[in-house]
């Protein structure tokens, strides 16, 4: 399966009469976008705002971030099973509005939404401060149930990203990158002397607003399975969750999963990247056992020498992580786990809820409990009041002058467990 990603570099975003990309600027027809979002009867109203790098702007409570993409050649469409039909994606050609994003906010959905500051110290902790953001401030219909509200916001974000992505369909990309995964046996034959490596991605699936969808299927109702990494670049996996902002994988993270990109980068040079397994993080112990058994079984079946395992969220998923690690290690396969830490504000507490001596190669996205002060911003998109109650915030987080004292947990993407951000910790 071979996919060409054509990146159209977006250096600015502006409102305009027609939605289009011209000279690396994304123009957005605001009215058309609003009409599209309001097709959903569960959305009462929406405001569309722009937030650009360096502006004194705070977006909160942020639910999801999505990169606009469009399928140009090959089967299927973006976000299969959700927006497009369930055709298998991941081959042909896809255009990406690189540097642009859709951000969803509005009335808070759960209690774990995040903050994105476009400037100042907070901006350093979120990758989304570097993007030209089209922000949707969505108001749900009165009396809408929480899970319906979540879905309405999720769909608004995805639809808007697909709508903006269409604007790049006939634009010549600034750069084109190719990604190819071969059938397993051919891949093994091609680089017989390189260590065979697979990627095990754990998907947040705890339910109660903590869900991920694969081709439209709720991941908590799935068994661990194989997927081509390029399918993910076409939106086969989307975020439907309100788990802690710092370490949830937004749809943007999935589309740009850096573990996949890095493994492709090293493929044929240092490693033979032969495949990818997705597994879930459910709330029943039997599910945790079954899914990790399955991940280990598939790893063994692939015959790999090593796997990279990434986690999403924290707390009880630490157990899924350790189960995956231990069970795969016991098959004689080396593992590296990618996680983050909740080590207390002073960093002195145990970082993960579970541990095992076989988890001896760990990459961390940093300590989510560290406290940061965010200065007031000139413009607020959304509402700042929820910062007193979102995860990482506390009563009194929001000061009278508009500044905010929170744990990094509250900043979208701060300690991402795909290694998308810059934070880490090193052992000496």
């Amino acid at each position, binding site marked *: 399966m071979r996919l060409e990603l054509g990146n159209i570099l977006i250096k600015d975003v502006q409102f305009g009469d027609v939605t289009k990309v011209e000279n690396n600027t994304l123009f957005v027809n605001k009215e058309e976008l609003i009409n599209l979002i309001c097709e959903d009867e569960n959305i009462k109203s929406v405001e569309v705002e722009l937030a650009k790098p360096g502006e004194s702007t705070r977006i909160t409570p942020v639910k999801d971030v999505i990169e606009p993409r469009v399928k140009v050649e090959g089967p299927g469409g973006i976000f299969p099973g959700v927006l497009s039909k369930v055709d298998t994606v991941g081959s042909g050609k896809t255009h990406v509005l690189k540097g642009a994003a859709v951000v969803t906010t509005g009335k808070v959905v759960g209690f774990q939404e995040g903050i994105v500051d476009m400037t100042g110290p907070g901006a350093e902790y979120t990758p989304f401060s570097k993007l030209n953001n089209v922000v949707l401030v969505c108001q749900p219909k009165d009396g809408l149930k929480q899970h319906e509200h979540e879905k309405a916001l999720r769909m608004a974000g995805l639809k808007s990203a697909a709508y903006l992505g269409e604007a790049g369909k006939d634009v010549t990309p600034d750069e084109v990158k190719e990604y190819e995964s071969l059938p397993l046996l051919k891949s093994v034959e091609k680089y017989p002397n390189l260590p065979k490596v697979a990627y095990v991605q754990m998907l947040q699936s705890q339910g109660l607003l903590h869900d991920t969808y694969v081709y439209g299927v709720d991941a908590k109702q799935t068994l661990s399975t194989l997927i081509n990494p390029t399918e993910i670049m076409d939106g086969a996996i989307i975020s439907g969750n309100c788990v802690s902002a710092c370490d949830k994988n937004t749809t943007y993270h999935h589309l740009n999963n850096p573990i996949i990109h890095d493994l492709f980068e090293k493929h044929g040079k240092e490693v033979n990247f032969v495949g990818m397994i997705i597994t879930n993080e459910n709330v029943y*112990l039997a599910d945790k056992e079954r899914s990790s058994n399955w991940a280990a079984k598939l790893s063994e079946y692939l015959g790999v020498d090593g796997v990279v395992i990434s986690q999403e969220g924290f707390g009880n998923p630490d157990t899924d992580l350790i189960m995956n690690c231990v069970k795969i290690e016991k098959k004689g396969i080396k593992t590296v786990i990618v996680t983050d830490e909740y080590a207390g504000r002073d960093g002195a507490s145990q970082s993960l809820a579970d541990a095992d001596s076989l988890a001896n190669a760990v990459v961390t996205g940093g300590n989510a409990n560290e406290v940061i002060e965010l200065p007031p911003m000139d413009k607020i998109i959304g509402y700042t009041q929820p910062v007193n109650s979102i995860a990482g915030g506390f009563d009194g987080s929001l000061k009278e002058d508009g500044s905010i004292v929170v744990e990094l947990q509250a900043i979208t993407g701060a300690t991402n467990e795909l290694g998308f951000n810059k934070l880490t910790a090193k052992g000496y």
Partner: protein
Amino acid sequence: MVKEIERAGIPVVHMCTVVPISLTVGANRIVPTIAIPHPLGNPSLDAAEEKTLRRKLVEKALVALETEVDTQTVFDK
């Protein structure tokens, strides 16, 4: 909390869903429960069934409390 109370000489039963974490932190008597969002109940049951379930869990915990153990023990029978 489990360890500190036991340190004070009072035996403890840890009722929890994620048994591996309980084992990692060093609980001695562990009773597995239903699910993380609802350890001691099950919203998919009706009220009478759920009450039976809850009573069974508590009774199991009481049995565990009375049982002599010399190593970490999971009461999953």
